[in-house]
């Protein structure tokens, strides 16, 4: 799989990553190399093989449905880039 300039721009947008014009050719070449390498796995015979998403085929453990967390809004917001009146600030969304 060889990625074009447009492919890289689209992927970067989907990933919400700003990359500069000058960086695009480098990323296109490196990502294409990685994908070409990854495609070696197409040689594996996987017909009928159950995908393995997790090291153990066991269901996720459930816990009792009880409140275990306390409200720590001030602590959590003390490390935020911009807050006001208990709210996270972002640039204006609606004009």
């Amino acid at each position, binding site marked *: 799989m060889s*990625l074009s300039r447009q492919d890289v721009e689209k992927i970067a947008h989907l990933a*919400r990553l700003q990359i500069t014009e000058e960086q695009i050719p480098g990323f296109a070449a490196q*990502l294409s190399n*990685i994908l070409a390498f990854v495609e070696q796995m197409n040689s594996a015979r996987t017909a009928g093989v159950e*995908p393995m*998403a997790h090291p*153990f085929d066991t269901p996720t453990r459930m*816990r009792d449905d009880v409140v275990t967390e306390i409200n720590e809004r001030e602590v959590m917001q003390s490390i935020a880039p911009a807050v006001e009146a208990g709210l996270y600030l972002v*640039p204006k969304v609606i004009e």
Partner: protein
Amino acid sequence: MSKFHTMTAAHVAAGLRKREFSSLEVTRSFLDRIASLDGHLNSFITVTPESALAAAKAADARIAGGEAVTALTGVPYAHKDIFCTKGVRTSCGSRMLENFIAPYDATVTRRFQDAGMVMLGKTNMDEFAMGSSNETSCFGPVRNPWDLQRVPGGSSGGSAAAVAARIAPFATGTDTGGSIRQPAALCGITGIKPTYGAVSRFGMIAFASSLDQGGPMAVTAEDAALVLNVMAGSDPRDSTSVERDKEDYTRVLGDPLRGLRVGMPKEFFGSDGLDPKVGDAVHAAAAELVRLGASLVEVSLPNSELSIPAYYVVAPAECSSNLSRFDGVRFGYRCKDPKDLMDLFCRSRGEGFGAEVKRRIMIGTYALSAGYYDAYYLQALKVRRLIRNDFDAAFTRCDVILGPTSPTTAFRIGEKTDDPVTMYLSDIYTIAVNLAGLPGMSIPCGFADGLPIGLQIIGRHFDEARMLNVAHQYQQATDWHARLPAQFA
């Protein structure tokens, strides 16, 4: 007593319990070594002398009072900067978290505190644990104590270098594709990646959640077992931590190896990339195990060469999902003067992440995007099952599997930074273990041209105690693990 750095953690702990010296003396001695020697290595991102001295005093009081003294009370350690530490910067080696003060402790951090252990500081690492050389850290590369022009391996490179130079008695690491074992090999120390689910991942900054696992990096297998006793255990805050009875990982360290069946995968020794000196050292280690009573069995892991391709779909896919939380809104880096919300997201992430993290996020985003999911992600998960089946079959014929940890010894700083795929190949022997969720460890087994060689031991699920037994018996018969780099002796 200023030779604490030549002692194992077990010896330090025994001396503390017998009150031959205090935790304050030991802690001061290691803080002094960090201050005088880490300028050569760059293995620490943050050193925490004040809290370390306070913790040491508390440990001394605890030992004096005879209350709740654990096996490692008062012993100092270095903590990989991926584990959250309340009130202490937790950077993950990234500009994104360069000023992030964790608001809570990781479960592993808490367990060490509860055991009365003393944190010296936080160690350097590849950014978000993505790298095999510690060169992707925004705090600069770590240098290998055996040759300062070479890498320590990664991603737990700071932890490995700190232990190898004995500026910390032991350290923590995390291993997603080899990030404990490969730096342990390249720095000549003992490191263990436990079975997936053995150690809580709560508060351990996530890279690839189905693969990540924390573990100890130490001088000896005995020390690693003692540390694992503190680290491991189920945690209600991590639903993937496995509920099991508490076990003592030191319980069979002293057992003889008579009757042990050691599997030698033929695929691990035939590949072109294996340095013959590394191969020879691993064969010599296997011969030593035979002298100790073990027998060798040839086994096959036919799909092992597909492990890196499958990993570079699974890990980036999970990373692209996990790292979506860094948005410049709630914590971490935020770009200056965003013109709108999209600009805030894209520039905060574009400026906050380094090149390797961006590559992996983009590979993962691509592999999970509409139209490509089946070809990449689903195929990778099927290959993952084949890899696990290979191990299951091999373990019907042997008790542990032996091989090299890394195909080469430590490479030069800058040697592989231009070619991501070449860098990825340095994890050829370690990645399959993560995909299968198995425990694996690396111990020193020789030197080539003055650089340490790592021996990998792979065990069945939750068979860490047996692996540590093999490693300990080998270390009783050899002294590779006891050697110090001349500059740090």
